[in-house]
């Protein structure tokens, strides 16, 4: 039954036992086992990534009233493999005046920044790389590496479009890091920990998207900006910058950027699920005596992956329905709206937490939800006034409907 409860430990123990049996020192054996675990994880991720390409193409086709890939295999499932093969056999071009080392390092860093995120994702209570006690910050830290990879790519290509794209993308990413940190601190306050497992556990019985819907929303927006996907795709902006920071890349190097982006989106979908939708938990269903069979490692993993796919789908949904926002509007949106809002939310949450933490969970949850609601209402009201004022600035003062009707 161990295999059902803690398969990772079982496998590791088996491997280490096997290797020590071959005469390896235990330390080395542990290291090799850990390396193998990482290797397997990455391999699985890469396969998932391939299907993400298919998923993305299929979904965008449906959004755009097309069919999407449908020739190769059932539902076009073989299509992404064909894409990979095409990318692999393409000529690998490095521009003449490019800074070669940096140029080649950038896509690797880009992919790496996504992959190391998986070190802290708990697929199940005991299926995770490391239960880091600063995991929430870790998410931001890997974002910093992604930022670095983009600026490296943009600069080393020796192409003005690439550099411009990198500049814009980096400005956006650095800016949206702030509301992201603030929104990450809200699960931290609610759960009292930055660890992913602790945050997941704290969401029984009430997931955090009920306690703090605003934080979930802010995190989603900041994540999309961090990903550089539409409507915040400043770095690529096909119509303006050709393809932004990765314009000079071709073949598999481009593929790494591309796959990295898709995987990144999927990963953030997963984080959204972990931080606000109860992670591998089934919203408390598995705690019911009648459904105890759901409290199972595989069900947990499945739950999280489904949540991640749903998150990914929402990110896609946003991407393919929204128009690109102008860079100055975007930065203004961040600095003048999202950042103050996230700080206000942080303050409100901290206050409510300090006041209501000793009350019953339901009172606590209700007061959190209501405080979010009130703050949200204030924000909407403020936005309404502001947009009306802006409209009047352009169109002149609005006439009351009655007057216009001639009464």
């Amino acid at each position, binding site marked *: 039954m161990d295999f059902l409860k803690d398969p990772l430990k079982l496998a590791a123990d088996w491997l280490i036992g096997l290797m020590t049996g071959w005469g390896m020192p235990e330390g080395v054996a542990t290291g090799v086992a850990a390396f193998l675990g990482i290797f397997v994880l990455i391999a699985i991720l890469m396969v998932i990534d391939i299907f993400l390409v298919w998923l993305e193409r299929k979904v965008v086709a449906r959004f755009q009233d097309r069919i999407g890939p449908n020739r190769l295999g059932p539902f076009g499932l073989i299509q992404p493999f064909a894409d990979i093969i095409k990318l692999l056999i393409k000529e690998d071009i490095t521009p003449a005046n490019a*800074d070669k080392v*940096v140029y080649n390092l950038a896509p690797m860093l880009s992919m790496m920044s996504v992959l190391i995120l998986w070190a802290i994702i708990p697929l199940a209570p005991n299926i995770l790389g490391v239960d880091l006690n*600063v995991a929430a*910050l870790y998410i931001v830290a890997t974002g*910093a*590496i992604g*930022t670095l990879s983009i600026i490296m790519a943009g600069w080393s290509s020796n192409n003005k479009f690439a550099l411009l794209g990198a500049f814009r993308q*980096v400005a956006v990413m*650095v800016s949206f890091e702030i509301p992201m940190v603030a929104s990450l601190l809200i699960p931290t306050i609610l759960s009292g920990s930055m660890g992913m497992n602790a945050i997941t556990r704290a969401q029984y019985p009430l997931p955090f998207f009920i306690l703090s819907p605003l934080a979930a929303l802010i995190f989603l927006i900041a994540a999309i900006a961090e990903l550089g996907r539409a409507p915040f795709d400043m770095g690529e902006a096909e119509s303006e910058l050709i393809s932004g920071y990765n314009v000079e890349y071709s073949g598999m190097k481009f593929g790494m950027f591309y796959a990295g982006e898709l995987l990144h989106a999927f990963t953030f979908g997963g984080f959204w699920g972990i931080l606000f939708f109860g992670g591998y938990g089934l919203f408390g269903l598995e705690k019911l005596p009648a459904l105890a069979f759901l409290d199972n490692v595989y069900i947990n993993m499945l739950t999280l992956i489904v949540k991640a796919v749903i998150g990914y789908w929402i990110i896609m949904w946003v991407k393919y329905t929204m128009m690109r926002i102008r860079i100055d509007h975007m930065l203004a949106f961040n600095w003048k709206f999202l950042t103050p809002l996230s700080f206000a939310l942080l303050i409100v949450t901290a206050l409510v937490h300090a006041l209501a933490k000793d009350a019953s969970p339901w009172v606590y949850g209700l007061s959190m939800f209501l405080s979010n609601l009130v703050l949200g209402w204030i924000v909407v009201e403020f936005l309404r006034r502001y947009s009306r004022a802006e409209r009047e600035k352009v169109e002149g003062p609005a006439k009351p409907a009655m007057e216009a009707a001639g009464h």
Partner: protein
Amino acid sequence: MTTAQIIFLVVAAVTLASAFMVVTTRNLIHAALWLVATLFGVAVTYALLDAGFLAVVQVVVYIGAIAILFIFAVMLTRKEMRDQGPQLNSGWWISALLAVLTFGGLVGMLWGWRGMDTLASEMPVGFDSINALGDALISPNAFVLPFEVASVLLLAALVGAVYVAFNPRSGDSRK
């Protein structure tokens, strides 16, 4: 030699080598990237010291913000980017001498110190350094005042930097 010692030595060597590249490399973008490497090394050092929070903050603040800022600054002062002239000034050998002297002096001073060979005590079981750090930062009995002063300093620096770097001409032309 234990594994930890090997890891430390490797990290220290890489870090110092990167630092050396930072101060000697011609290309400033490369220097900034080497700085990133150095900072990574320092972050790993923090991790080795069980200061996980510092390690992550090092990455967030230094690599995510400061290094990026450096790269931006280098690009904004682009005339120097392909400067093929000497990157060190004429008195560089005095500087080198002084640096070596400093290093020698520091090590020499440390040599006679009794605490040099102290080994780290085990981390207490159940001790959460992040909780302790958070308490220390906002506890009135500990460091809330320096913490607040630091935040005010950051704000002042932010405003000052915006003011200093703001170009009134470009600001006008946008309107």
